[in-house]
């Protein structure tokens, strides 16, 4: 058993940054007032919430009043999709467009709308996970209410042509939402320049706390509300504000977006090292996702004749935390819908491994990870009846 843990599952969640925790702490026991109260204890907290709203707005290049705090990425996705559908259904717009590789928060929201009678177009992606802007344009109809396309994929890291799609949607007068949960803090985002109408983000993916996110919604774009109640968030998202978490999100997004270029350079150096080394040293491995249009911290391999959960268990025994798109780890019986959508056969999808680097990782860890991974793949293959077959085929 290894004493030290190498955490390379930052696409799943990230450790909370020390400065973020420090910013949050005063809002539990000292500044605990309700931001809606009139006395100063509450008013101070109102200021703290507004300050965080400004930090999010700055990161996205939008107005503070266009930012709404939510419980996370899933709520923001639900709000954008269900809220838009229900708002525009009154105008006879009952068609939505998305992709086959979205997060389940998007796909299952779409499925819920289909059960209500809405129609959804699921655009395919190419073998690298890219959706074409031309296919978006071709799918838009007079009754299209919304285009929802993720900024970057959580499994394979592919970055979609968001600015191009945004321009098309704006030209066609269709609202455009992007699930940017994996992208915020990893790549520069400018909602104005990229013509984004709605955007979902989550704090815990960028070294902030869990259970808090934000929904950017451009002025004039008014999806119906999801959570009705008090007048918080300009009357559009009820519920007493989670002040410490909101303060944490503000601090986290400020830190994550203040120097994206150097952070991306650090992460992509580790990413490229692992890709190059594993592709060189391990036979029969495939890199999933786009070779260049890719999140700086994302690596996704398929190891032929290996099953993903076996890889993860071995890595866990060596103190490495990673993830896989195999059925055994998804809780369902099919491997990841993303890996199937990029055209991987089931057995190759079962052998996938995702490594996602974060700001706290080091090049030394990347090297240790490769040392261990090379041995683990060999051991899993030694046990595999498929590896033998493959070898025979190769040696023919």
């Amino acid at each position: 058993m290894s004493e030290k843990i190498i955490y390379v599952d930052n696409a799943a969640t990230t450790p909370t940054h020390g400065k973020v925790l420090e910013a949050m702490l005063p809002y539990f026991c000292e500044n605990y007032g309700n931001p809606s109260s009139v006395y100063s204890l509450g008013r101070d907290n109102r200021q703290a919430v507004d300050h965080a709203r400004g930090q999010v707005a700055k990161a996205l290049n939008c107005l503070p009043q266009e930012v709404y705090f939510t419980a996370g990425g899933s709520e923001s996705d639900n709000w954008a999709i269900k809220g838009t559908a229900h708002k525009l259904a009154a105008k006879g717009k009952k068609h939505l467009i998305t992709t086959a590789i979205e997060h389940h928060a998007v796909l299952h929201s779409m499925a819920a709308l289909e059960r209500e009678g809405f129609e959804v177009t699921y655009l395919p992606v190419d073998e690298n996970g890219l959706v074409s802007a031309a296919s978006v344009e071709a799918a838009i109809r007079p009754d299209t209410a919304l285009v929802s396309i993720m900024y970057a994929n959580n499994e394979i890291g592919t970055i979609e042509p968001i600015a191009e799609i945004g321009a098309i949607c704006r030209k066609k007068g269709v609202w455009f939402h992007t699930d940017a949960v994996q992208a915020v803090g990893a790549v520069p985002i400018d909602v104005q320049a990229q013509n984004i109408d709605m955007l979902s983000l989550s704090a815990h993916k960028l070294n902030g706390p869990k259970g808090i996110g934000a929904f950017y919604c451009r002025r004039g774009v008014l999806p119906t509300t999801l959570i009705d109640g008090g007048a918080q968030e300009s009357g559009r998202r009820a519920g007493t504000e989670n002040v410490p978490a909101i303060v944490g999100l503000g601090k986290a997004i400020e830190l994550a977006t203040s120097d994206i270029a150097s952070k991306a350079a650090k992460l992509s150096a580790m990413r490229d090292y692992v890709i190059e080394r594993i592709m060189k040293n391990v036979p029969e491995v495939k890199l999933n996702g786009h070779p260049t249009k890719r999140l700086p911290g994302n690596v996704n391999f398929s190891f032929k004749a290996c099953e993903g959960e076996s890889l993860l268990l071995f890595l866990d025994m060596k103190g490495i935390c990673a993830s896989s798109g195999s059925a055994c780890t998804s809780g369902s019986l099919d491997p990841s819908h993303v890996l199937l959508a990029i055209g991987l056969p089931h057995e190759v999808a079962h052998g996938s491994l995702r490594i996602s680097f974060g700001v706290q990782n080091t090049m030394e860890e990347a090297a240790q990870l490769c040392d261990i991974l090379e041995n683990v793949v060999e051991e899993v293959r030694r046990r595999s009846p498929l590896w033998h077959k493959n070898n025979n085929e190769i040696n023919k």
Partner: protein
Amino acid sequence: MSTMYSAKVMDHFANPRNVGELADANGVGEVGNAKCGDIMKMYLKIENNVIEDVKFKTFGCGAAIATSSIATEMIKGKTIDEALQLTNKAVVEALDGLPPVKLHCSVLAEQAVKSALSDYYTRQGVDPTPIIGCMSDDCHACSCEGQHE
């Protein structure tokens, strides 16, 4: 380290018994399919009705490796009749339990043994069906199959 598996499962996963192939096997069985994410291949060397040696290779999750490993231990040195008595329930009990979603791996282990014994009978010129029952080519008894298509 805490995992979803019992210590026994993790022991068999980390140190599987009888991994490999048998060049002189006289009964070989393969069950499962790559689409499901589990394939077990079992090699038996049978002499005088006794399983003298057994090896396996498995493509699959931790539970699939562990059930194949312990199944080889449970039938090694046993008679064919004894090996035919091996049930998936006995495999699960020997491993101190499996998570519910992994129970189908124990069914595969039982089937892998039966499939290899079936092959042995066929090679001896004996119709295995009355002895072992109908062996399907894929994981029909595997609970996942019905939901798959």
